[in-house]
């Protein structure tokens, strides 16, 4: 269960995320959609405790990511935008290192390693050097790294990017199977991905949530694409108002 509450993140004067709130329930897959630069990665980095929010908070299974950071981080598996691999390490050594960092008990590391290598299709690659892997395999190692401690919460930042169609199909299947009673949040800008595997969709544009809805409850007959484009353009129309608002804010800042 992830509860994002009134999250705001400002980089200097630039506000990347404005008052974002949404909820991802246990056993569901939440698709986090938005155009480039909408604030998806920033939001995910805050959820995983990599960077602090300017305001608002995130609860991971009820644990606050800021005040109970260690306990909350223990529950998360995270695949960042670019897989966090050490280019000189071999796949197996790397995954063992992550397993120890993630507090997998020593006796269970072998089993955990074998399991993630198998589900991510890396069994034959375990002795390869990370830096020499293709983009698709790097992505898989990144995914394996996020899964190795069997976390109740999974945060995946564009998990299928850079994969070939067959791999995309496999990884989607994998994520679908993973859900179980886990909470999964995945960001993407591939719309069919969301309609295929997600239970809930959150659309974000210009740092604001413009739609949070269960896929089943979306009006029948409308495609996700229409809804997405609608939500984003609606945001654009609102921009007149928000521009004035932000002008006032800037003015207030100067006085």
């Amino acid at each position: 269960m992830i509860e994002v509450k009134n999250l705001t993140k400002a980089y200097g004067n630039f506000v990347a995320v404005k008052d974002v709130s949404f909820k991802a329930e246990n056993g569901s897959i939440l698709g986090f959609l938005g155009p480039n630069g909408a604030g998806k990665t920033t939001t995910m980095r805050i959820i995983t405790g990599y960077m602090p929010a300017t305001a608002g908070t995130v609860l991971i299974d009820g644990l606050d990511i800021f005040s109970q950071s260690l306990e909350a981080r223990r529950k998360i598996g995270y695949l960042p935008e670019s897989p966090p691999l050490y280019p000189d390490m071999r796949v197996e050594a790397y995954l063992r290192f992550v397993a120890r960092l993630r507090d997998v008990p020593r006796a269970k590391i072998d089993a955990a390693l074998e399991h993630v290598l198998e589900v991510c299709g890396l069994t034959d690659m375990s002795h390869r050097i990370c830096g020499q892997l293709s983009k698709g395999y790097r992505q898989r190692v990144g995914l394996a790294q996020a899964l190795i401690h069997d976390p109740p919460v999974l945060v995946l930042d564009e998990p299928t990017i850079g994969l070939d169609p067959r791999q995309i199909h496999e990884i989607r299947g994998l994520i679908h199977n993973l859900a179980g009673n886990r909470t999964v949040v995945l960001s993407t800008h591939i719309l069919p991905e969301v309609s295929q595997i997600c239970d809930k969709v959150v659309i974000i544009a210009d740092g604001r949530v413009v739609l949070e809805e269960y896929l089943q409850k979306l009006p029948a007959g409308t495609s996700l694409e229409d809804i997405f484009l609608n939500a984003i353009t609606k945001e654009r129309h609102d921009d007149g108002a928000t521009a004035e608002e932000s002008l006032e804010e800037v003015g207030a800042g100067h006085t």
Partner: protein
Amino acid sequence: MKNSLTIAGKELAGYFLQPVAYVVMTVFLLLGGFFFFALLRYFEVMLTAYSAMQNPEVLQRLNLNDRVIEPMLHNLAIVLVILVPAITMRSFAEEKRTGTYELLLTAPIRTGEIVAGKFIAAAAFMLIMIALAGMFPLILVAFGNPEVGVMFSGYLGLAFLAISFVSIGLFTSSLTQNQIIAAISCFGLLLLLFVISWPAQAGGSSFAGLLHYLSLPEHFSQMVTGIIDTRDIVYFLSLIFVALFLTQRSVESARWR
């Protein structure tokens, strides 16, 4: 502690996955061997010259510790000023650039444990390298009769010096994601520690005292001459502590709102 050792193990193995560690060790030992050879050769020439002059007083004062080990250790300290930045520049800067920093900071570990792990690895690397340079005194012990205690004190000084350098290197690396910037600023700080007492004569006595206290060679040469004084050890330990504390703050600052 367990997490620190996990990181330390990965870091130490990481040094040897790249050619940098081998290059640094080779340069250090080759130069060390060259200094040792040159100084020993000079010592031998002087020895024959003074023996020929039949001057027992001067001959008595001529010894291996003063003429070979002491200048060699001082030279190696200068070599470390150049080599340590090359070893430590990667530690944080590269993690930030490749994105693995995100892995470390989202793992359930404290920033202090990350810093401690990286420190243990870099310090261990330095100790291995200095231990290998211990072959030079061993050669002297095998073929001459130097004072072992003084040599031990000198090597202990070199180890303290190297570990202090490493802490400063970790700090500069934690400030940037650019390895060159990390290395150059570390190099600058280390060099400054060497020359900081130069303006001492110009200032008042308390100012001069402060500069002399901060000056790294003053504490190091004490140990090289065989004097293990708690003041010098406290100096090195404070340097290490302050540098690591600043590193931890710098890493932790990523979490400040």
